[in-house]
């Protein structure tokens, strides 16, 4: 034979072997790839935060003639940093090169030769400056990115004076705080001596013709006599004032009425009366961060005293990682619920309030004296004890997510108690996404549970009947029919469940209860009746293997009777309206898209799967076993129940597992036929929000790479894991069965 041909054939054979083997492995590769890829997307959720020193600005370069630096700050892109110095100047630097970009003097509000001596910083950023003559000015500094026609970005700064206040005769304030009011005007709080608090509202009223009139209301808060106030905090529109005392008390005033501030609350924060050394309001102004002299850092917010009372009280909610020394300053992030805190030893902590994650601990060669965050949490500028400015670049991805927020109960702002909540988006900007996967997992389990409750008995019993009792001719018809059932798209089942079954059930819920009772009892009656009828010989002949056909009219009759008697039953038992009755008796609101609908729809989707696999394994039990059992005098039921069923149990188990896996992952049915509300209870008249539907609903709106996107991938990983365990278990059992009988 032609050697070349032979060679070619052999080569082809070898190539084919390689290709086909590679193809086989590609299946494992695909499964692994899917898992690896979706896990990789979720990993950054749990990544540790990073901080690196980005630039250092030497003290002598920062100010002229060695003037003291009062505050330093950073823009959102880390390009510009600036310094407010005690000589009354604002200097701008290129962060990376340290080059001075500009220096401008700030106008003194009072005497022309006054210099700033102290300041308070808040927000985005707003500086309240105390000048040497006792006057106060309020200045807002903004950095605005500007794009030219070629898309190049440049950052422009703007300094805006919001208010000026004359000095108060006789006394220099110790602490000053000012905020713009919600309406026009400014609120200023000054602390004199240890405890005197003076609140000044400057209210601006604009007339119709553009004229302005300014009115000042000055009120001294009387409740602080005899206390030593050690920390003050004012919220971003100046309507709530908080003070901490040396004896560990927290005082809270409502300043919404300029003429009559009101002490809303006074609580002993710490039983051991340790001094409160720092206060700040967390972004959103709902939570108060409290630092104490022992280094403790906690957050507080107002919670209803009792569920039925309209009074609120400040409660200790989250405890963050403690500092080794007294907390001296707390700087809230302007973007989320993170807090930067500084202690007396000069080290800083960066924590997230809600997740309780301790994100970073920062220290430098010299102790830090002052810290400040930029607006996007991407950078931090600190002044150390030598006056050197240090700029860190921060990489804090997904600080709001931790295992505890994903799976545990979390006490969110505005909630009366810790809870599992899924609420990923809302209309307002300072909204905090709440991403607990627990209610979603619960929803998946709830829906699956009810569906399996309906599907497993039905499918298994039907499989037993088909394999053991039905005539072969029927079996050949029933099996393909059920298999065709499996092919009905889930979107069709979901649509029918939601738009046909749900309204039907809502109208006839009483009939549904009735039919649950009628079907078994009618069956029993039917069987008894048949028992009497089968004395007639011709009937007896056709009986075997035709039972299920005989039962169809009985079932139809039962359902018809239930529907006919339903309204009467509802009248009798539920007073005419089941939904009303349910609400009055148990407080449960009937949800039209509820678990009954889900049980039917999802159950219907998994019945064919369980049925097919169970039926296969039942009919593959060797005939010899059956024959032996029957020959020993067992009845056909006894044979089926005691001999065939145990032998086929691994296959039945496998079928149930695979059905369970399908029910867990089914998306369209639950998306359409559940209410998609993430609630956690077992009540059958409520809906739920399962993992799969949640992904389908939320992923189109999730920004790529954002927290929500990654959390949704994490829920996909969970789904994958659940079905992976179930399917692997099923396959292992099936392989065992195959070994047992040598074929399958």
């Amino acid at each position, binding site marked *: 034979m032609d050697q070349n041909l032979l060679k070619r054939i052999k080569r082809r054979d070898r190539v084919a072997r390689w290709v086909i083997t590679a193809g086989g492995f590609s299946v494992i590769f695909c499964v692994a790839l899917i898992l690896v890829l979706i896990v990789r997307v979720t990993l950054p959720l749990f990544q540790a935060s990073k901080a690196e020193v980005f630039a250092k600005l030497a003290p002598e370069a920062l100010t002229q003639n060695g003037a003291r630096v009062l505050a330093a700050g950073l823009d959102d892109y880390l390009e510009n940093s600036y310094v407010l110095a005690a000589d009354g100047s604002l200097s701008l630097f290129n962060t990376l090169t340290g080059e001075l970009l500009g220096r401008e003097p700030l106008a003194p509000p009072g005497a022309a030769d006054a210099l700033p001596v102290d300041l308070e910083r808040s927000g985005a950023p707003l500086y309240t400056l105390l000048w040497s003559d006792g006057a106060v000015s309020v200045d807002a500094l903004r950095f605005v990115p500007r794009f030219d026609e070629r898309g190049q970005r440049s950052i422009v700064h703007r300094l805006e004076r919001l208010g000026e206040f004359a000095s108060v005769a006789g006394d220099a304030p110790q602490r000053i705080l000012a905020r713009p009011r919600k309406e026009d005007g400014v609120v200023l709080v000054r602390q004199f001596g240890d405890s005197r608090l003076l609140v000044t509202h400057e209210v601006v009223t604009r007339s119709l013709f553009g004229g302005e009139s300014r009115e000042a209301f000055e009120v001294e808060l009387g409740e602080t006599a005899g206390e030593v106030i050690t920390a003050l905090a004012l919220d971003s529109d100046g309507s709530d004032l908080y003070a901490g005392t040396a004896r560990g008390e927290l005082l809270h005033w409502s300043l919404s009425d300029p003429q009559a501030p009101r002490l809303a609350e006074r609580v002993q924060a710490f039983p051991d009366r340790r001094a409160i050394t720092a206060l700040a309001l967390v972004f959103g102004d709902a939570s108060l961060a409290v630092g104490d002299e022992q280094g403790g850092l906690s957050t507080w917010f107002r919670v209803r005293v009792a569920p039925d009372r309209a009074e609120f009280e400040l409660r200790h909610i989250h405890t963050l990682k403690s500092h080794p020394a007294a907390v001296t300053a707390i700087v809230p992030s302007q973007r989320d619920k993170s807090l930067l805190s500084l202690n007396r030893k000069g080290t800083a902590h960066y924590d997230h309030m809600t997740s309780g994650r301790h994100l970073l601990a920062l220290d430098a060669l010299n102790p830090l004296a002052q810290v400040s965050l930029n607006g996007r949490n991407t950078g931090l500028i600190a002044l150390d004890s030598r006056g050197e400015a240090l700029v860190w670049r921060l990489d804090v991805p997904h600080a709001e997510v931790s295992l505890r927020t994903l799976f545990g109960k979390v006490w969110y702002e505005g909630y009366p108690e810790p809870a599992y909540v899924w609420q990923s988006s809302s209309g307002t900007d300072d909204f905090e996404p709440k991403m607990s996967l627990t209610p979603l997992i619960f929803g998946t389990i709830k829906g699956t549970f009810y569906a399996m409750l309906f599907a497993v008995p039905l499918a298994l019993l039907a499989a037993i009947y088909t394999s053991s009792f039905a005539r072969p001719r029927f079996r050949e018809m029933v099996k393909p029919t059920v298999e065709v059932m499996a092919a009905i798209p889930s979107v069709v089942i979901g649509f029918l469940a939601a738009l046909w079954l749900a309204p039907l059930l809502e109208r006839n819920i009483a009939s549904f209860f009735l039919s649950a009772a009628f079907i078994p009892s009618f069956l029993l009656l039917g069987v008894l009746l048949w028992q009497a009828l089968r004395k007639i010989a011709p009937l007896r002949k056709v009986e075997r293997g035709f039972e299920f056909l005989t*039962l169809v009219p009985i079932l139809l009759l039962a359902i018809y009777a239930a529907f006919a008697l339903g309204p009467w039953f509802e009248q009798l038992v539920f007073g005419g309206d089941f939904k009303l009755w349910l609400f009055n008796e148990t407080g449960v609101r009937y949800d039209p898209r509820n678990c009954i609908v889900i049980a039917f729809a999802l159950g219907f989707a998994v019945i064919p799967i369980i049925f097919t696999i169970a039926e296969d394994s039942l009919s593959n039990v060797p005939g010899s076993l059956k024959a032996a059992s029957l020959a020993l005098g067992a009845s056909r039921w006894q044979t089926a129940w005691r001999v065939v069923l145990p032998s086929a149990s691994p296959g039945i188990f496998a079928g149930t597992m695979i059905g369970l896996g399908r029910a867990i992952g089914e998306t369209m049915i639950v998306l359409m036929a559940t209410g998609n509300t993430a609630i956690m209870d077992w009540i059958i008249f409520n809906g739920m929000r399962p993992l799969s539907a949640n992904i389908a609903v939320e992923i189109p709106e999730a920004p790529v790479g954002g927290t929500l996107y990654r959390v949704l991938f994490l829920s996909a990983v969970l789904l*994958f894991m659940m079905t992976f365990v179930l399917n692997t278990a099923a396959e292992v059992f099936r*392989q065992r069965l195959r070994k047992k009988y040598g074929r399958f």
Partner: protein
Amino acid sequence: MSNLHGKSMRKFWRTGEPCVWFTGAALSLTLLIAATLVAVVLVNGLGVFWPSRVALLELTDGSRLIGEVMRFEERPEGAGERLQLKIGNRDLYGLDFRWVNADEVARKSFPEEIVVLERSEHGNFYGYLRAVAAPGLDLPADLAPLEAFGRASVAVAERQRDIDALGARLAGLNSQLERLRLQLLKLEYRGRGGEDAAVLDIKRRRTVLKDDFEQLVARQGLMLAEQRQIRAEFEEAGGRVKEIALAEVVRLYQPNAMSVPAKAWFYLGKLKELLFAEPREANTEGGLFPAIFGTVILVFLMTLVTFPMGVIAAVYLREYAKEGLLVRIVRIAVNNLAGIPSIVYGIFGLGFFVYGVGGAIDQLFFPGRLPTPTFGTGGILWASLTLALLTVPVVIVATDEALGAIPGGVREGSLALGSTKFQTLMRILLPMASPGIMTGLILAMARAAGEVAPLMITGVVKLAPALPLDGTFPYLHLDRKFMHLGFHIYDIGFQSPNVEAAKPMVFVTTLLLVLIVLAMSSVAIRLRNKMKKRYTYSTF
């Protein structure tokens, strides 16, 4: 006698005969539920296009209503019945449906002269045809309005053809303009300035095209205005008169005057519209052609990938791999692949295909168009690849079974005659297993046709502006978004602003999808059973 009866009764219980009956009941219940589902779809879907009679109701307060009686039900407050009437005329009444209490109806009749208009906007119109105004057509003045309407609509249809031809030319120009825009973007990305010869050339061509485009638009506008001159006057039940341009009328018929064959003819016409026309009115009216076409292309593309992948993997499992741990792991992997929820495939498709591969393709080949994504967004290619991954286990399992059913002697015979393994595979085994492989493929296609969840996040849309396959180069646009029957059901059933009016269309779409899927899977199962019979005698 009673003793005997008791004994047999006891035996009946002891042998567990009632349990047999209960298992039988489970089977009948399952089949009943399936039959109910199919019946609901059939009953609601088949009747949609049958022109139902339109009733004229005279109410006790003297007002008159025209509409189709949809259903009767008990009044929620208890006393008596009420009926739901589809009154149409959304532009006049605001609502399509109205409930009327049965005891308020004084007289109900079905006058033959009532006409139903299907319009391209605002839903159906129910009322009477009063007159036709057709300037430029010179219809005889004494012509009956219906006759005049018929002649006028023939003329309108003729003109519409001209306008459509113009529209097609406009679309061609538009796509040329778009191509020029993309070329310009590419040149700009490469840093060619405004004075570059190529850039100037493109700009010049663009000006010429734009000029043509504007002239054609102007001409089309004139024709449309002229077209809209031909109007008909209708009167609704309450006597209000409404003028409607004939161009807006899709169809006019008098259901009460139609005979059964006429109705059947009408039904066929509607079916044709369903299969070959574009959707109207936020998808709740008109045809399903883009959705059907999108589904077909999707399934076709998926098959191209899933078929070789599945067959090769199964051949490896059955013919090449040695039984052992590895094969067990592969089998477990296959089963897991089959069991992974479809939404997880969707997430994978989004993360890997759309953002991963698609993003990389955009960076490499279409950097000039960024940030507008080309492949880095959902599209038919990514959707079909995702579905291919989803359906590959079906093909693997079917092929595996088919190969397993071939008696070992066949292989041994072939090898003994000196053929290589590959030759045995290609010449003997695969041809023998082909019915089984076909079965798997058809089942996979049926699954793909019905699957929606992964598509929702990889590129299906409620209304695609263009088909993924058309006459402009490169003909098959893999980056385009597409429509899909299954998603159509979800979309119009759940996202449509007027769910009640959309219901008939949802049922029709459902019926179509169920028919396609059931037909495909029945054929597959039939094939498989036939094949089983062919080989089973020799397996054991």
